[in-house]
């Protein structure tokens, strides 16, 4: 499979501390790739650096290529236009704006390579949203906000959708629902890079998984390979029998 996203030797520093120390990673066309790891392993740093984005003052070096095109040094709003669209961890919507305003803020680019989502298409993907369309996002539940954040991202016609902990704050039984939603999008042709705490659920939907430890890739492989990986089993699946 030809890689849509190719990350090589990615290093990120916050001041004097190294958060990411030479990471290589690929995501193929129509592939769902997950990143797992303990808190502080560098998962968010990794996906933020792919989007060229940071809430802090991160400095990144290394190559980030989308379809062979080098994006390193490009501002995040321009990467969005090239098709790398990130839904960040935590606050991913404008809370003072309504659901519909959030969605309308993003126009599908005229020469969109990815699928075009009109507002109605978003409402079809998330049938709970139309009823809340004129509600301010600050009044939504965590799950509803996450839907708006993902809906907003889809509006940008992404080629690579990056989701950083989309299920955070959701009830455990909803996590798999969210991940199945993501899987459906991938079935529609989208490529997804996913960071997710719930590794067990992630392995049910992901094609491949990277395990990060202290800013480095400690292991990677297909979902079924990684299910058998001792470190994954011990740390995330509740022992070898999990």
């Amino acid at each position, binding site marked *: 499979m030809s890689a849509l996203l190719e990350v090589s030797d990615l290093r990120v520093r916050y001041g004097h501390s190294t958060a990411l120390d030479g990471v290589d990673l690929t995501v193929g066309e129509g592939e769902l790739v997950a990143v797992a790891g303990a808190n502080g392993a560098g998962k968010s740093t990794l996906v933020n650096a792919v989007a060229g984005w940071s809430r802090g003052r991160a400095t990144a070096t290394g190559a980030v290529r989308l379809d062979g095109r080098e994006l390193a040094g490009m501002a*995040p*709003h321009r990467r969005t236009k090239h098709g790398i669209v990130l*839904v960040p961890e935590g606050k991913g919507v404008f809370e*003072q704006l309504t659901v519909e305003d959030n969605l309308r803020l993003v126009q599908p680019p005229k020469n969109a390579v990815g699928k075009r989502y009109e507002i109605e298409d978003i409402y079809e993907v998330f049938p709970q949203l139309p009823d809340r369309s004129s509600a301010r996002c600050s009044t939504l539940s965590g799950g509803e906000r996450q839907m708006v954040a993902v809906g907003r991202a889809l509006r*940008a016609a992404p080629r690579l959708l990056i989701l950083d902990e989309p299920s955070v704050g959701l009830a455990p039984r909803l996590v798999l629902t969210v991940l199945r939603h993501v899987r459906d999008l991938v079935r529609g042709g989208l490529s997804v890079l996913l960071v997710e705490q719930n590794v067990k659920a992630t392995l049910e939907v992901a094609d491949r998984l990277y395990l990060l430890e202290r800013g480095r890739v400690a292991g990677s492989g297909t979902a079924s390979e990684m299910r058998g990986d001792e470190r994954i089993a011990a740390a995330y699946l509740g022992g070898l029998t999990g």
Partner: protein
Amino acid sequence: MNVVPQLVNGVALGAGYALLAVGWTVLLSAARLVNFAHGQLYMLGAFVTWFAISSLGVPYLAAIPIAVVVVAVIGLVMQLLMTRLVLQQNIVSLMLVTLAFGYLIEGGAASIFGGNPEIIDSPFRGHNLTLGSARFTEQDVLILVAALVMYAGTFLVLTRTKVGRVVRGVAEDPKLAQLYGINAAKVYVGVFVFAAASAALAGAVIAPRSPILTSIGFQEVIITFLVVVLGGIGSIIGSLVVGLGLGIFVALFGAFASPAYSTAAAFAVLLVVLVLRPEGFKTR
């Protein structure tokens, strides 16, 4: 003593305060920026209007857009020079840098336009109107109309249009805006230029009420700051209400207590309000 003339006078005064504050209100709410050269841009708007009329022979109503465009261009240059500070949201440096721009503009204006008091020859300032026992000029009406139109227009643009959504998004979270594909730096430039242009409009419309000097900027920036802070930093409606209220307060205080202390009294009100309600009069 009759209250009505003072009320009418206060409304005209207050409409002027509000008009001068609209740009800074948007600047603070949308970009969390301050511009301590705002008063000097007001002064420049007034002097460009005066210059266009008295030296170029342009009619008053045509001189207004000239002043707006000239000052907008100066605002654009200022903002482009400050881009890095703006993106870092380095407020302390921005206060100093804009203050420095203010003094430069004041010095430049003094060397170009001279140090004498000048009068903007507006055709509306001589025409007196009466309302009961109150007397006011057509210029006062123009100020009120300009203020209401600017506030209504700004409010509609911010709440009803795509541009407004973008500006409100950047106001809430400029980092997140980048992920929406929004170039926050461009939005900052747009908002700053709007603020500069509206200060020029205020200068062109308000200044014909009294003789102008190139040193009037600083007093104006202080009043603007007062209105914006009391209005609840960044609240459009708040600035309009506080601007009008402050005008009426100053007029009444000047008439019934002492005009010499009206600015001090206005700041005393600011102190009391901010001690009791640190967020100003803003309700939400």
